[in-house]
């Protein structure tokens, strides 16, 4: 957590000129075309952009799941580009908490054991206690023994968030964490991210397609065609759950030619 790290001036993420090229035989696909980016400790940032623009590719590189074709990547002061597979596994284990769009929970495994997973590979003690604390932080202290099939989508994603934070990572990376959720569950998940960021100072980067969700973060980075096209602070970030999201009816206001009032129309005749 924030105050545990000695040097607060070093950005958590510092990438310079990152490119990623997929070699598809005849075709060379330049997915990332030179991305430079710094994310400071305690920030909560969203990345937006059209489908296929390279958001997930970037996130996977940030999460040490994939390696860039060229470019430098410093995570928490450590040069990731030079690390071996074993060391990358350690980075993923200790410094990064990844949350996926599709939750990626283990089948037929209790919530508590899902959350213990990173701790198992870290070889840490008191796994059960830490896992329960993480589940409590996402409001699932009464669902410890539930299997994924016994949890709602939102709850499953909260288990995944608990799994991401349990190892006390430097940063949480979430690729469309609300993408598979309805707006209410999405808001709940946002609430958790905001609270973890506010209370524990956890640095969070996530990808979203939903402008409403992006408005809850402090900074929005826009990507198009493998390049950053905008990187702006949000003037007044919303607090999840406080601001009422416009209902579907309100969002649809004004898109119809005539007023939509079928019952009145029927009564007038």
């Amino acid at each position, binding site marked *: 957590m924030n105050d545990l790290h000695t040097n607060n001036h070093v950005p958590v993420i510092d990438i310079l000129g990152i490119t990623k090229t997929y070699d598809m035989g005849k075709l060379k696909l330049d997915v990332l075309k030179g991305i430079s980016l710094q994310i400071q400790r305690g920030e909560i940032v969203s990345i937006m952009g059209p489908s296929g623009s390279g958001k997930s590719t970037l996130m*996977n590189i940030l*999460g040490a*799941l*994939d390696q860039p074709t060229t470019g430098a990547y410093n995570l928490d002061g450590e040069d990731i580009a030079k690390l071996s*597979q*074993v060391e990358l*596994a*350690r980075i*993923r*284990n*200790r410094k990064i908490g*990844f949350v*996926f769009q599709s939750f*990626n929970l*283990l*089948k*037929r*495994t209790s919530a508590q054991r899902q959350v213990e*997973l*990173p701790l*198992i*590979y*870290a*070889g840490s003690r008191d796994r059960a206690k830490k896992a329960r604390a993480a589940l409590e932080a996402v409001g699932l202290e009464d669902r410890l023994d539930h299997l994924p099939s016994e949890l709602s989508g939102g709850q499953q994603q909260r288990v995944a968030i608990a*799994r991401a934070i349990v*190892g006390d990572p430097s940063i949480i990376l979430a690729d469309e964490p609300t993408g598979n959720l309805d707006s209410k569950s999405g808001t709940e998940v946002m609430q958790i991210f905001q609270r973890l960021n506010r209370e524990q100072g956890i640095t969070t980067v996530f990808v979203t397609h939903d402008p409403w969700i992006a408005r809850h973060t402090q900074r929005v980075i826009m990507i198009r065609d493998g390049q950053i096209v905008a990187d702006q602070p949000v003037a007044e970030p919303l607090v999840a759950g406080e601001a009422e999201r416009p209902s579907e009816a309100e969002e649809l206001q004004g898109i119809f030619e005539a007023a939509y009032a079928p019952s009145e129309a029927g009564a007038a005749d």
Partner: protein
Amino acid sequence: MNVFENLRIALDNLLLNRLRALLTILGIVIGVAAVTSLISLGRGVESYVASQFEGLGADILTIRASPPRRGFNRLAIKPLTTENVTALASGVVAPSVRAVTAEYQVQATVVYGYDSLSSSIRGVSANYAAANDWYPLEGGFFTEQDNTAQAQIALLGSSTVEDLFGSASYDPTGLTILINNLPFTVVGVMEEKSSTFGQDPNSAILVPLLTAQSKLGNARVAGAGYSVSTIQAQLVEDADVDRATDEIEAYLLAEHGITDSTQADFSISNPETISEARTEVFTTLTLFLSAIAAISLLVGGIGVMNIMLVSVSERTREIGLRKAVGARSRDILSQFMIEAIMLSLLGGAGGVLLALGITTIAGQALLSGVTPSLSPDVLLLATGVCSAIGILFGLYPANRAARMQPIQALRFE
């Protein structure tokens, strides 16, 4: 990441796919059961054979005329004779020999009433009963007088009684049978004797030695009395078997005018060497059968490999996730290796249990007197072989899992 965690993961996964795991280990179960019960039964038979020969004692040497191992000429073989018997019995030529019995076998037709059979008649010396600890049920054995008088009397084995008189419990004492058309009086029935491998002693027809040599066979040898088929030399107490063998060999070589001992036209054996030779045959046979049974183990191992490959591809996303949260390749490798080894060890345990059942039933029902021994070293072997199968056939699937890239694995549908 410790072994305990991997054991837990493997166990969880096996329990999730119980039926599949069960079917997979079935191959191993059958293979292990086949191999272990064969080895155990083989060992049981071996010790049974050994125990059968034990009763005969190591202090009897059997001498037979037999062609030399190399470059033999059958016509040149000199028979063993009553003269040899007398010389050996004298204790002069072979001081290690205490007593000697001789036997002359001849094929003859035996008739009683309308029943007839062709049988090997065994002419034996008067001390034969004592030397072999085998006596008539009632009455005495042939005497030296019977022998010199060439008495036409016979002692029958229990099977011969059954064959000739229709019932083993029939007492033919006093009846007259015809052997090669000569009348012989049955003077008694021999005790039933457990058969060692080979000739059944209960089908014997015993007559005095000289009777067989002169009246049933044509055993006269010019200047040397009569020929005999076998000589049994009983050794003095605490005699050195090898030394006794050397003494007898030296004497017979000199008698037969042979200088090269590899050209000896006789053989000297004792129950121990016979038992060893037979045990060796059984060991080879057991090993051969086990090797065939081991093929089913191989098939079982391929089954393990198959199911591990299925498991790895089914759990690709799980592998990706584990790697994403910090599992190293070697963590994944050991996870799947342990699962494969666990599968085959479970199969091994099942196989040993099955083998236990098979050998118990076989020991009780099929081969009376044979006690199969499922000894610790066989269990150890089974465990070792199963671990090896797990390692051998688990390595490829586990390695495949370990080498997966996290991103590709997570994207896998």
